[in-house]
């Protein structure tokens, strides 16, 4: 962890218009929850469904995508990463710092809104709300690792990440049997399921397996990112 890199990363993330998107996504979630809480009398039936199918499956991967690629891919894209790379700093420090910044952003702009959304939908069940917050955090960490690796490995990290987030996590991970077992969303749902008694929260993956897969994806992603950054070739103008 390097404070200067963290500061620079924050300035990239929030210094540009793109940073606004990071606020819009959780805002949409919260507005939707408020509207539903106001218009529907008994929200208990679908509150967990909304948190899972819209929150965990759509908002969390998208916020993670914006945070992680914004922290790394955008600097590689425009070339400003050269100011970090031309320093006697371990590449692992650069990656880990950027990943930590992304996770911090996810906590503030996805995990906390998720807890608030849960409370808006069902104020009497703070446990479920907190469980979804925890699920968001573990999913966010895994996504950060995936999107950080993607940022170093591809010049189209955002596009590929978007396709993955929307198609795989958003659709396949919810509805297609085989894909469920291999989706971060279901793994994090297993964590949520463990932490709450809410009846409709049910993951396709058992908790121990989910935890192992979450840790494995995180470690592989970060390790891959570090090793790729070490031999990152900066494109030349010619």
């Amino acid at each position, binding site marked *: 962890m390097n404070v200067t890199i963290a500061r620079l990363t924050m*300035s990239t993330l929030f210094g540009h218009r793109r940073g606004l998107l990071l606020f819009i996504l959780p805002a949409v979630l919260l507005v939707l929850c408020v509207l539903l809480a106001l218009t529907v009398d008994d929200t208990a039936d679908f509150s967990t469904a909304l948190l899972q199918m819209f929150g965990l499956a759509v908002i969390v991967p998208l916020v993670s995508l914006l945070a992680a690629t914004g922290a790394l891919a955008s600097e590689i894209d425009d070339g*400003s990463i050269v*100011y970090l790379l031309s320093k006697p700093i371990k590449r692992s420090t650069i990656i880990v710092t950027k990943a930590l910044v992304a996770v911090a952003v996810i906590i503030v702009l996805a995990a906390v809104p998720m807890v608030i959304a849960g409370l808006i939908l069902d104020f009497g069940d703070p446990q479920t709300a907190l469980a979804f917050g925890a699920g968001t955090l573990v999913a966010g960490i895994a996504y950060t690792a995936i999107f950080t690796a993607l940022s170093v490995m591809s010049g189209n990290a955002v596009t590929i990440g978007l396709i993955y987030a929307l198609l795989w996590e958003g659709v396949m991970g919810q509805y297609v049997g085989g894909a469920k077992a291999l989706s971060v969303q279901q793994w994090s749902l297993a964590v949520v399921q463990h932490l709450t008694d809410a009846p409709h929260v049910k993951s396709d993956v058992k908790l121990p397996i989910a935890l192992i897969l979450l840790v494995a994806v995180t470690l592989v992603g970060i390790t891959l990112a570090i090793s790729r950054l*070490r031999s990152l070739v900066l494109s030349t103008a*010619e």
Partner: protein
Amino acid sequence: MSVIQIDQVSRWYGNVVAVNDVTMTIGPGVTGLLGPNGAGKSTLITMMAGFLPPSTGTVTLDGVPVWQNQAAYRHIGLVPETEAVYDTLTGAQFVRANAELQGLSNPAAAATAAISTVELTDAAKRRISTYSKGMKQRIKMAAALVHEPSVLLLDEPFNGMDPRQRLHLMDLLRKIGADGRTVLFSSHILEEVQQVATHIEVVISGRHAASGDYRAIRTLMTDRPVLYRLRSSDDRRLASALIADPCTSGADLAAGALQVQVADFERFSRIVPALARDLGIRLLEVAPTDESLESVFSYLVGRR
């Protein structure tokens, strides 16, 4: 005192050869890396900066390879061609961040000093996004100089600068070179190189075409036709004697002096005094008419 050694380096991208078997040594002082666009200058600088591995050969700084060697950046200052910087920061914040990343013990003082070196103190508190292109170039320069590196690499540093900023940067590079530091900059504009560099490396189509100061480069090109102007006590007789020798390919008396197209410089330089002595002609002046790098360059490019 640092030396960059490029030893039999080639670099290709797929089927395209960007740099072809280049060997050169860059020592203290200001070296200009000269060549037309697409000649492989950026590729060479990127390899010297450790951001691209050579396909074959080695690039070393004081004997140590730079590729995947983060410690080398303690000694290297890099001014990349890319314009992107953390432009939401102020100039002062940006340079200070670079000082911190270098692990300097007093980053604030180092940043202030570097900013004053590039004479940007007045604008240091402004956001970089409000800077002109020339100012951005200077703040990048300050960031590269903040840790007082022994090697300074600059990729097309004069691009987009107005004449005044250009002169300022030239002065600065000369000063840094005079300090005994190793400065290398690339350019495709000949007069820039000629004005600053004490040493020139010419790269054309990925190959190392010539090396030396610009007069030396020219002298190396002995087979290059050069126009010489001679004034003597009898131009007409001297002209007929010279045109009879295979070292010249043409002579012209029209311009009020004798102009000779020299094909073989070595032979020409030996034969002129001898001829004049034998013919009893007094030589008043023998001078090349175009000493400019431009003519060397166009010759080198045209030859390939």
